[in-house]
C-alpha cells in the first residue's frame, strides 16, 4: 500500500506522517508537492497538519485551490482513500470533500495537549483495528478545531454513522469538560459518505510509537493497512 503525503508551504507534520507510514507501518511512501497534479499512483493520500499557506484568508482555504487538491478531489470521487489530519481536516472541509467547517476554538486559545477520543464506528477503513467504543489517547494541537455544521448535515452524519471519533474523558464519556475546543457534539473526526475520506483534528501520527509517549494513533494507520490488504 503506497502512501502519498501532501506538502504545502507551511505543512509541518508532513514528515511525521511520512515517518509513520514508511518507518513504523513499513509501507512505501512518498511526499507529493502541492504544485503538481501527479499523485504518483498512491493508494492513500495523507493531507498533513501544519499551517498551509500561513492559514491566510481561512485555515485550509488557499490550499484547497492548489493543483494537487484538484487531483485529490478526483481521486476521492473514485473511492480513493484520503486522510486529513488537523490542518488537513480543515483543507478537506474547505475542498468540499467533507461537510462542515472548523472554526476558531471556543476560548480563543491554541490548545496543545493529549486528549481522549472514543471510536464511534469501528467498521470503517480507518478504525477497523479498534474495538467499538475504544478510548484512544491522541494529542491535539490547533487553534481552529471547533467543528460546526448545520442541523441537516449533523443529522446526515449521525444517520450514516459517519462521526468516527468524539472527544471524551478518560472514562469514555463525551462531557463538556472533555471537549477541548467547543466542537459540535464533541466531534473530533468524521468520514465521507463513502467512508473513503477521513478528517480528524487529533494527530495519530504524533502518537504512533511508544517512544512518543503513546502509540494509540497507530491503530488508525493499522486499520488502513488492514483494510487495503482485505480489499
Amino acid at each position: 500500500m503506497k502512501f502519498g503525503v501532501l506538502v504545502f508551504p507551511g505543512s509541518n507534520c508532513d514528515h511525521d506522517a511520512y515517518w509513520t507510514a514508511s518507518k513504523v507501518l513499513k509501507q512505501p511512501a512518498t511526499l507529493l508537492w502541492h504544485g503538481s497534479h501527479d499523485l504518483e499512483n498512491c493508494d492513500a493520500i495523507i493531507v498533513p497538519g501544519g499551517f498551509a499557506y500561513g492559514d491566510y484568508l481561512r485555515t485550509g482555504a488557499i490550499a484547497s485551490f492548489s493543483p494537487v487538491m484538484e487531483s485529490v478531489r478526483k481521486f476521492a470521487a473514485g473511492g480513493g482513500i484520503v486522510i486529513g489530519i488537523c490542518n488537513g481536516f480543515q483543507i478537506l472541509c474547505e475542498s468540499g470533500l467533507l461537510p462542515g467547517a472548523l472554526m476558531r476554538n471556543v476560548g480563543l486559545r491554541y490548545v496543545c495537549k493529549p486528549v481522549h477520543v472514543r471510536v464511534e464506528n469501528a467498521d470503517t477503513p480507518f478504525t477497523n483495528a479498534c474495538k467499538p467504543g475504544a478510548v484512544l489517547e491522541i494529542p491535539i494541537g490547533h487553534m481552529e478545531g471547533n467543528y460546526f455544521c448545520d442541523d441537516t448535515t449533523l443529522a446526515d452524519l449521525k444517520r450514516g454513522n459517519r462521526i468516527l471519533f468524539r472527544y471524551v474523558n478518560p472514562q469514555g464519556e463525551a462531557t463538556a469538560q472533555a471537549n477541548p475546543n467547543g466542537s459540535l457534539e464533541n466531534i473530533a473526526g468524521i468520514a465521507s459518505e463513502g467512508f473513503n475520506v477521513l478528517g480528524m483534528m487529533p494527530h495519530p501520527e504524533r502518537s504512533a510509537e511508544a517512544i512518543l509517549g503513546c502509540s494509540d494513533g497507530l491503530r488508525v494507520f493499522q486499520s488502513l493497512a488492514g483494510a487495503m490488504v482485505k480489499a
Partner: protein
Amino acid sequence: MPYNLNNSMKAYVYVSLKKSVLDPQGKTIHGALAKMGFHGVADVRQGKYFEIDLTGMARAEAEAEVQRLAREVLTNTVIEEYRYTLEE
C-alpha cells in the same frame, strides 16, 4: 464606446459569520467592552473586510465578478456570508 475599459472600480467586500453561527471572538470583545465600561453594547460580531481594485470591466461584469469571487473564495458559505459595495 458604451464604457471606458480603463475605468477602474473599487469593490468593498465585507465577510461575516452567519447569524446562526456562534462568534467566539465577537463574544470575547463584547465581554471586554462591558468590563471597560462601554454600556449599551448589545452584541459584537467580528468579520473581515477586503478592498479589491478592478479594471477593464463594465459595471455589470464587475458586479458578477465580485459576487463570484466573494462566493467562491472570500467566504466559506458553510459558516459565512458576504455583502459588498462597488464604487467607480
